């Protein structure tokens, strides 16, 4: 069951970086409910990262610029709270794990955030153990973060974020620098946190096939604006709009769209977005043709 409480409320948000005259974010209005898994799709430079940075107040409190409108996360207006306070609500994971890691051991990496919160040393041990277990890195406490694989490093970044007990996990292209095993691991952890722990997950990604399989909702950005906002079926159904923006849809959706448009197989405007949906739909259609 999804909680219908809004945890993120953004209204009439505009933001312009100090080095630019063109707004990086334009007229953003967005509500995200607690427990949702939301993916953000857009070309590089479309505003995905800027939007994510407003969620924990890095924009406008650390990266200053011209901001209009309001960002309220878990009832807190980000304008009024320092980033270290927002970090207890919003955990952030970026695309390059190496930039986020600094400590000698895996355990210290997680302890770093806890120290900043002023958590006593004796209480840290449990938390460290717990979050490493969630991301599947238990037993690696004493390893150097730099000896881990890309996928493991990224899961360590997730564990560090989880140690702060945030309500929202925000990830900016977390799988762009890891191999297929690493990708699988990261998506699995994100899904598990969402499904089993009810955590709100907000992730910018390019992998549309994975996005369609996991997300409750997909937001499409272009030139700093939200262009589409809906379920994977609603959003990826807009094949032509997305293609015109230079974006891809899942291969099975593109297939259905072309089969429909060429009148080879009718889909009546409802395209499959996952492998399972496409399999079922085509099996039914092609099955009829069996001799």
């Amino acid at each position, binding site marked *: 069951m999804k909680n219908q409480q809004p945890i993120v409320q953004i209204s009439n948000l505009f933001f312009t970086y100090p080095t630019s005259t063109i707004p990086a974010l334009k007229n953003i209005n967005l509500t995200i409910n607690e427990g949702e898994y939301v993916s953000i799709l*857009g*070309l*590089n*430079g479309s505003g995905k990262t800027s939007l994510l940075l407003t969620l924990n107040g890095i924009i406008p409190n650390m990266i200053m610029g011209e901001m209009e409108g309001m960002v309220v996360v878990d009832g807190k207006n980000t304008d009024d709270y320092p980033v270290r306070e927002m970090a207890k609500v919003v955990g952030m994971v970026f*695309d390059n794990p190496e930039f986020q890691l600094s400590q000698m051991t895996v355990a210290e990496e997680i302890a770093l955030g806890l120290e900043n919160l002023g958590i006593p040393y004796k209480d840290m041990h449990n938390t460290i153990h717990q979050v490493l277990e969630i991301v599947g890195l238990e037993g690696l406490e004493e390893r150097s973060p730099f000896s881990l*694989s*890309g996928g493991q490093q990224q899961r360590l970044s997730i564990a560090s974020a989880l140690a702060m007990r945030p309500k929202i996990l925000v990830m900016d*292209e977390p799988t*762009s*620098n*890891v*191999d*297929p*095993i*690493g*990708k*699988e691991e990261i998506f699995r952890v994100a899904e598990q946190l969402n499904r089993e722990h009810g955590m709100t997950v907000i992730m910018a990604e*390019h992998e549309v*096939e994975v996005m369609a399989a996991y997300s409750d909702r997909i937001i499409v950005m272009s030139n700093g604006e939200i262009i589409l906002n809906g379920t994977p079926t609603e959003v990826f159904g807009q094949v032509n709009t997305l293609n015109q923006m*230079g*974006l*891809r849809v*899942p*291969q*099975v959706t*593109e*297939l259905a769209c*072309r*089969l429909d448009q*060429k009148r*080879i*197989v009718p889909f009546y405007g409802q395209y499959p977005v996952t*492998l399972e949906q*496409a*399999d079922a739909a*085509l*099996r039914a259609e*092609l*099955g009829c*043709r*069996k*001799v």
Partner: protein
Amino acid sequence: MANGLIRCENLWHIYKTGKVVALQDINLTIQAQEILGVIGQNGSGKTTLVKHFNGLLKPTSGRVIVGGVDTARKKVQELSSQVGYVFQNPNHQLFARTVEEELEFGPRNLKLSDEEVIERREKAIEFFNLNPYRKLHPYRLSFPVRKLVGMASIYTMQPAVFILDEPTTGQDHVTTRIVYRLIERLREDGFTVICVSHDMILLAEVVDRILVMRNARLIADATPREVFADLQLMHSTHITPPQITELSLRLRESTLQKVCLSVKEMVETIQDVMSGSRPTQSFNN
């Protein structure tokens, strides 16, 4: 060349630090004008293998022959005009103060005339859509654009062999399409391309042959259709074929007979089935 453009004979590579066996007894031949993909998880030996092709690494034992010459007897500089290597991380490759300078460096090194240098530079700028960035410092560019500059700088040298290491990592759908076009253009112009990648959709659509690496060994060397249809191989390497290939494999159990590598191919295959020009497979035959 009957013996192939690149040949590995009993190639072993053992890294001195930590004595890690990175390549174990690799034997393969690559013909001129082949478009080839190399897949496997990180640490499986992919990058170590292709770094032998331009002499960045030398075999611990065995031989690597490029253009008929043993790489052990050649310097990287001598090989680099023949075999261009586009690094996964463009920061390891770029050093000039502007994109233009970066794109002039290779051709100047090849001792081309000023006119030819400019011509090569402009061709690369046009192909990779770099015009807005030409006067900028490469480090001021976003990572994906910097990667395109890395590819463009090798493109200006026009080496016979292009090695692309993870060309689509960190790219969005538009810049990924530039990589597709690059490989297609290189194919038309008769170059040899070796593409190390985790991007199975890219490989399924553009390469003719795939090398599969696992734990320092070459465990498969076949066409993309054969590789992606081999479920056991896919499973053992934790690699997922393109979604469209997975769909065609699932439908093959009941209705379709063809393993499809692209959406276009799947549309055509289904069209054939629906129009009845090709018999569908029934459970009885």
